[in-house]
């Protein structure tokens, strides 16, 4: 009996040692990024984040245009993707006939499986020309707005936001779908019993699942912030802080992808690593918040569904 106990302990320690490597890697990422970014952190301090000069020759680095491009493209992508994702989630979980559900889930998840580089290739040769044409055919009255200023290049923020929206949809849609499933049937039945229409009943279910839906949107936001290849290929890669969706921009991930391998001196490299460090921290916060929301929501949902089980546990 004691031998068995010792064997079990050995098993636990061995698998545990491998498992601890996962924790070690996450910590190592943070430590390595801070160490490699240290030169830049010390030299520029906070000014790094609000100056917009990026000049490797003179050794001046400010990340503002990259932060602006990243936030602008991601937020715009979310504005496009959120209604579509919610529509998909509702359609699959509430409206579609059963035989259609699984194929639709598979197809939307396929969007998440396509490699980023393939999106980029498609973006360069198909989406960008289409966007250029659409930008050019906008009426002049609209073109006078600051959002649509400048020549219709195609390569620019609008293309990047569109491609990001397509890439983010499967993530938000699948979280929203999963959490709509946890809404107790009583919620909808109650609404119907009160004479609600289908829309009103689903609206009640969506409201019940609201924190889960916010979590899904945040998960999509985390993906959009860090997306690299597809954005790099269509955003035009020109660091500027501009309101225009037609203008080329630059993102944090894109500048690392384009310049890291060529960064010759230590300061340049370290400035790029600092951008990576912030990208790491921001996605960490966004993803963690999203997971906490999902966790509390699915917990309260199980509690509502099975009060006895929850009480017993």
């Amino acid at each position: 009996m004691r031998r068995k106990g010792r064997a079990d302990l050995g098993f636990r320690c061995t698998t545990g040692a491998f498992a601890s490597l996962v924790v070690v890697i996450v910590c190592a990422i943070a430590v390595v990024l801070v160490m490699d970014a240290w030169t830049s952190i010390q030299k520029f301090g906070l000014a790094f984040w609000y100056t917009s000069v990026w000049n490797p020759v003179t050794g001046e680095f400010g990340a503002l245009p990259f932060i602006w491009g990243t936030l602008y493209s991601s937020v715009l992508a979310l504005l496009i993707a959120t209604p579509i994702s919610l529509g998909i989630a509702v359609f699959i979980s509430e409206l579609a006939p059963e035989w259609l559900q699984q194929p639709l889930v598979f197809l939307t998840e396929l969007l998440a499986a396509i490699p980023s580089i393939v999106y980029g290739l498609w973006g360069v040769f198909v989406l960008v020309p289409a966007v250029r044409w659409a930008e050019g055919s906008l009426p002049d009255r609209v073109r006078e707005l600051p959002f649509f200023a400048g020549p219709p290049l195609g390569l620019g923020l609008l293309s990047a936001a569109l491609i990001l929206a397509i890439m983010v949809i499967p993530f938000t849609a699948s979280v929203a779908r999963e959490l709509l499933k946890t809404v107790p049937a009583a919620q909808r039945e109650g609404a119907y019993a009160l004479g609600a229409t289908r829309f009103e009943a689903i609206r009640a279910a969506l409201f019940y699942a609201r924190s889960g839906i916010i979590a899904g949107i945040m998960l999509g936001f985390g993906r959009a912030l860090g997306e690299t290849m597809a954005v790099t290929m269509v955003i035009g890669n020109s660091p500027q802080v501009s309101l225009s969706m037609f203008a080329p921009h630059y993102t944090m991930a894109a500048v690392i992808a384009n310049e890291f391998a060529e960064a010759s001196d230590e300061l340049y490299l370290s400035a790029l690593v600092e951008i990576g460090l912030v990208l790491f921290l921001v996605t960490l916060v966004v993803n963690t918040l999203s997971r906490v929301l999902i966790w509390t929501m699915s917990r309260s949902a199980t509690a509502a569904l099975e009060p006895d089980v929850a009480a017993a546990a």
Partner: protein
Amino acid sequence: MRSSASRRKLLSSAFVVFCAAAVVVALIPLAFILFFVAARGLSGLNLQFFTRMPVPVGESGGGMANAIVGTLVLAGLAALMALPIGIASGIYMSEYARSRFAGAVRFAADTLNGVPSIVIGVFAYGVAVLPFRQFSALAGGFALGVMMIPIIARTTEELLLLVPGSMREGALALGATRARAVFTVVLPAALPGIVTGALLALARIAGETAPLLFTAFNNRFFTTKLTEPISSLPVQVFTYALSPYEDWQRQAWAGALVLVLIVLACSLAARIATRRLERMHARG
């Protein structure tokens, strides 16, 4: 009263139409991407693509033999690193699911899964390139391995939990140690799922470009030396896509087609295996 009721009904129908339209709007780009990749990829895809080396600009023909071998080498290295760590952590998380440390590992795995791939590249550069002052296949494999670990760990955990509890309890009741119960009963039952989980992880990293740009870098020549820069399919597609030469662009599409086929095959296989396990779980 009456008009309000009909307005509510109208709104409800409009909502249903909106949801259906959302599905269509999302599937249109999917169809477009698959169509273009298939149509343009097929025209560039031939035997040469798999067997020939890239040729200099101006010469026609040539292929991506070095990039295909490079991707295989990188994926192999990544799997070598990620399979033991991922599967063992998955076993730990499912066997000791309620322990506090399992929670920490789960959190770390989910965090790692959300780290942008470009950041993993920067990390791998700091760990595996900078100290040796050399881009290398090893560094690229390391970066991809780090990305694979959380995927394998989480799928292993999920699939082990799908194995009916009665099977594990039966083994333990017969006096088996936990290791024996896991290795002779639980793991074999979940094995097809774990294998396809690994395939899925491989498919995910096979198309990754960003973490390779400054770890494995690129190489115009054929190499299997692990301490040298190595070419890979996604990086080669990236280089060719942005080139002004039509011949190279055609090869980029062919490369994209190969990548999409790899991903499609693996996700279908994984789906079938998971469904089989779920059925077993439902029976058990």
